């Protein structure tokens, strides 16, 4: 309790509290998790804004992420360079969106970006096929994959352009009662 920590200035902590859904304690705890991934790279003093990026291999080895089939896409979406190498800001952003307090629309926006493998702002058939294969470990047959993709686009595509835009995705997510509890990483 109190201002005993020397990692961040008070203003920095305030800024983090305003920009994420975490409390002071949680932000410090996340910093220590970030640092534990590479203690020699991450300094204990962030008051002068050091420019430290952890490579994707380290991020992807976290126990919360290492078995997630979408870990690479998650890291890519939240990282600055789009390759999965994350600064502390990106790290906090990622877990803030994936925490249980983030609202549905914010999560839907980032979920859309995660499932959009080719980054063209639409979830097209190839994106869906990649998602399905990651979900089922390539165990569905070609025909079954095609059938499921067609059904998904049938159900969710409102503007009938053969692919899902952000609005279609959000409209569908609004009808999913489980989304908030499944799109949630406990850390």
């Amino acid at each position, binding site marked *: 309790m109190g201002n005993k920590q020397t990692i961040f200035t008070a203003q920095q902590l305030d800024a983090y509290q305003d920009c994420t859904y975490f*409390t002071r304690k949680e932000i410090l705890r996340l910093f220590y998790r970030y640092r534990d991934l590479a203690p020699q790279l991450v300094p204990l003093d962030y008051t002068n804004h050091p420019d430290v990026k952890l490579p994707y291999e380290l991020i992807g080895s976290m126990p919360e992420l290492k*078995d997630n089939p979408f870990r690479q896409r998650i890291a890519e*979406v939240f990282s600055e360079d789009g390759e999965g190498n994350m600064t502390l800001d990106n790290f906090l952003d990622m877990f803030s969106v994936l925490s249980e307090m983030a609202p549905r629309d914010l999560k839907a*926006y980032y979920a859309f970006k995660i499932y959009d493998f080719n980054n063209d702002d639409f979830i097209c058939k190839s994106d869906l096929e990649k998602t399905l294969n990651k979900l089922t470990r390539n165990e569905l047959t070609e025909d079954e994959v095609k059938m499921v993709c067609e059904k998904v686009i049938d159900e969710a595509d409102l*503007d009938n352009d053969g692919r899902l835009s952000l609005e279609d995705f959000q409209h569908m997510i609004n009808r999913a009662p489980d989304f908030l*509890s499944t799109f*949630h990483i406990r850390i």
Partner: protein
Amino acid sequence: MTIEQQRQGLAFSGSGHPTDQESLRFRRVSSRMSTQIYHEPNSSTSLAQEEEQSGSEPTLELRNTVFPMALKKAARQVQQMQVPAQFNGGSWKQKRIKFVRQFKSNVREFLYFFSLWGKTLQKIGGNFGGGVQSYFIFLRFLVILNFVSFLLIAGFVLIPSIVFRSVGIKPESSKADVSSECLKYDPNPQGLVVFYEFFLDLLSGTGFMEYSYLFYGYYNNSVIVTSLVGSHFSYNIPLAYLLTAVFYFAFCLICIIVRMGKAARVAVTTGGSDVRSYSMIVFTGWDYGCLGSKATKLKQRNIYYRLQVDLEEERLKKHAASLTLCNKVTLHSLRVLMFFVAVGLIVATFLAIARATTFSQENSHVPGILGLFYTYLPSIVITLGNFLVPLLCDQIALLEKYPPSATVVVALLRAVVLRLVSLGILLFTLWKQIMCHDSRDKCNLCHYNHEDYQCWETSVGQEMYKLTLFDLLVSIALLVLVEFPRRMVVDHWSCKLTQWVGRQEFVVPSNVLGLVYGQTVVWTGALFCPLLPLINTVKFVILFYCKKITLFYNCRPALRTFRSTSSAIFFLAVLLFGWILALVVMIYSVAVIHPSFACGPFRSFFRMWKIVPESFSTLPEGARDFLFFIGSQAFSIPLFAISCVFMCYFIALASIYGKSVAMLRAQLKLAGQDKQFLVKQIEKMKPLSPQHNEGEQD
């Protein structure tokens, strides 16, 4: 759409983050942000709150925006710089909002520290999914409910009774004009007591346990009125007993309804979409909180299985649509026949329970182990029925060939009916015996069967106590004798049979029904066995740890998952059904059956509820007039009229919201169609102006 605006106005490169050249643009945009009214992605109340509170300048909830952290921090700096420019009231309001948010997060952290088994539930959710976790959350809710009820009962009934007994206040004998036969009550064992009688008594609530604080018969009808100098202390134990029971029921009802409201809110906002659509499975099926490679592989198999099941249902639907008339008639007649078979099985179970209860009550005085077996006979028959009949119904369901989703619902309904109505049959049989429907002559003397039941309330309490205890013993016995050996056999002995049987699956619905059954038994028995909520708390705590152990060591995650959100409402609805059953029993005991003459707090009353009018007369003048006024027509009719007005208002409000939701949905669809139309128009326009396009491309 506003997010469209974001995307167009802040054209990110493919990665979603600005390059150096674009950062200037963002700084300009971020200054715009705080001046334009901004539809945030967060549709919750924060926007409304902030628009209200900050008056002309709506403050931006930064954490709800979709910008990366660097941009959010820049926007925040801009906001901070603008704050002194606003009038003082604005910044004070911002400080207030911040303070409230800090306070809420501090309270949340504090409560999390106190929340029971929080980490365990997280671990269960990560490894086995939301369905299993919802069972344990339900169990935790019941533990807390029982514990708080026990505190209520202890505070108002148990502790005063202990105090008065230790002070030496003797019970008043019944003043009613009735023969001495009815006043005979001798629960203490006569003569030599064999050593194993101790355990038999512990298990069946007789002997030394019968005349103790555990059962109704021990409580006295002491009414203490002291008028010492300066202080006036009075305590009416019978009144406290009855009112505590009533408040206990009301408290449980309020808890259930509040929890149901929370769960229903989630269901209503999502509009009751169809449960098994493909897009739901693909986009919301993956649980990001899933930990461990084994759990991940199982989750992937689970999703694969669900998709297969859906595809299978599609094929079945196509097949069913292509059936000839003759086939359809056969199928429907088969279903009707199977329905009657299931009903017949359930009715047969009820008859067996009734017969077992009668037999057990007739032979309750047989000593020794055989006597213990006879007293436990109703519990044994109920447990056997609850175990065998669902198995048989599952086999019947194979013949009925309903689609998979309908099969699950039908099986659940059958199980619920079986469990709760079998308890009702047991109580009905007991009641018949107490009110001697078969042999009229036994009840002539004391209005109830005083020969077999000198203190009938204690007998009913004992029956409920035995049911609770037997339930716990069976759970532990199953754990030790069936589940652990099964896992050891399956793990170490690989042959075709063991692979086919496989490891235990944690089936959520039947476990939840077991919990509801246990809680209904406690509610029914609380009036006759005041310590039953405490026993139930201990039982549920033991059950929690037993189920947790069996889950982690013996079970594999079920391939067919149970949806966690709609199931929460289902669990609470079944619990409410159990509550209603217990309420019927309580009302019947309080209002229709004559209390025992020989024991208990109501021994001198004609009916249990008669204590209330009689205590009325001891109230001071003012309170009596006030209560009479509340009960009179002058108050109740205007109250009824006002509550009708409020109800109409809420019904109108609800229908308006429903209509606006439907209208907004239709509007969304229309917007999509408009966009499609406009795109088509653009396509049409393109060939008309080819020079324009060529010029632009250069």
